[in-house]
């Protein structure tokens, strides 16, 4: 699962929302997700080292551990942590992946290795939180990030590793960074044919509202993404996605289960995005892998 919880953005200008209230709400929601969806791997975005310390003290430490990935990079930092069920998997930090663009460091992502304890099989997961949309020039940074992650992810897929790329990309599935640079497509047939070259993006399904418009229906909400902000072409954006390597569509012991892969926009989370004071502004995304 990936969730940009928005507690402590890495940007220096952004205010931290870490309060007793936000911590309590976050913890309640993480626990309810774990209970309802039996999640083994939870990556949280926009957290600080302080937030990780809080979570570490308050999660069920008999079952779960935390990997703090809020590493400093020059004047900024990565802002991700991973909560994982240590009774089933181990998560090991692998690399910080960076690039430079006109002298500025680009935080393309971090990679972790997820090892399944019962058969020692492993999956490489790239965790990404790319440059925001508040400046036009950040588009170049997101494209650079995509090129960089694509290079390293492809090194892994070429050596038959299962790979997952997840995060808040600040781009939609059809944007250049995801579609053209990461080669993450919605075409299952094509990905199965070229599993080492293409990624499958199951989140294309969530670009449209699950409520089709009809004059019979009295509906005011048409949720169609993971993040809401007003834009000339639409209010909803699907910035949070989980992309899987083609190997997970039949070339590995592990398989993507698309029926259990979704944006978590149930009433409980919809209300969270509307509650004042606003703490959370992204929906979580969940993806299930199964071994038949």
């Amino acid at each position: 699962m990936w969730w940009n919880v928005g507690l402590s953005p890495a940007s220096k200008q952004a205010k931290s929302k870490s309060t007793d209230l936000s911590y309590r709400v976050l913890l309640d929601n993480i626990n309810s997700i774990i209970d309802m969806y039996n999640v083994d791997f939870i990556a949280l975005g926009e957290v600080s080292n302080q937030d990780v310390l809080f979570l570490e003290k308050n999660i069920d430490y008999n079952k779960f551990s935390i990997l703090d990935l809020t590493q400093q990079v020059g004047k900024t930092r990565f802002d991700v942590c991973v909560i994982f069920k240590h009774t089933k998997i181990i998560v090991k930090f692998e690399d910080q992946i960076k690039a430079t663009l006109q002298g500025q460091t680009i935080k393309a992502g971090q990679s972790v290795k997820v090892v399944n304890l019962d058969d020692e099989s492993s999956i490489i997961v790239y965790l990404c939180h790319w440059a925001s949309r508040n400046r036009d020039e950040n588009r170049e940074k997101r494209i650079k990030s995509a090129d960089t992650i694509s290079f390293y992810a492809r090194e892994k897929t070429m050596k038959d590793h299962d790979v997952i790329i997840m995060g808040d990309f600040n781009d939609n599935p059809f944007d250049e960074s995801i579609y053209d640079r990461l080669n993450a497509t919605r075409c299952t047939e094509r990905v199965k044919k070229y599993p080492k070259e293409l990624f499958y993006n199951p989140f294309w399904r969530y670009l449209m509202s699950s409520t089709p418009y009809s004059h019979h229906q009295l509906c005011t909400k048409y949720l169609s993404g993971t993040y809401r902000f007003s834009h000339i072409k639409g209010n909803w954006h699907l910035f949070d996605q989980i992309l899987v390597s083609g190997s997970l569509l039949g070339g590995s012991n592990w398989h993507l289960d698309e029926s259990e892969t979704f944006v978590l926009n149930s009433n409980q989370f919809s209300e969270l995005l509307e509650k004042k004071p606003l703490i959370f502004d992204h929906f979580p995304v969940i993806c299930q892998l199964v071994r038949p």
Partner: protein
Amino acid sequence: MKFNFNEMLVKGHEQAEQTLINRTEIQEVFTELRESIIEYGEITVSLYDQVEFEANSNSRPMIGLFEARIPTGYTLLNIGSDKFQKTLFKYKEAPDGYPISIEFLYEKFLCSNQDEFASAISGILSNPQANLIIREVISKLKEANT
């Protein structure tokens, strides 16, 4: 002319020229790196390329009685002399020069031009762990000279 090979030859020629420029640029960065280490350590230091091989022997195929060593695709950039060397970082250069990937400890940088390549190396040189490697090499070379 039926197949228009001439046009392709011209295209290939232009791309080959760019490849030669890229390789020269990369070499310039390595040369400046070497000169800077020499100036910093006040001793002659050389750079050596060494092919990196996979560490995990379980996946190695057998050739006759011998295990084949599988290259990772990366080159180790060693600094020192012909008697003593240490790896500073590893890199992988594309056939046309760029992109060039550099790995140092747990950091990976992908560079698509000379500026980005030089920036990535600057980042490594300012890292305390890299400095310790450089200091160890300088100290060993000075010891060997006395």
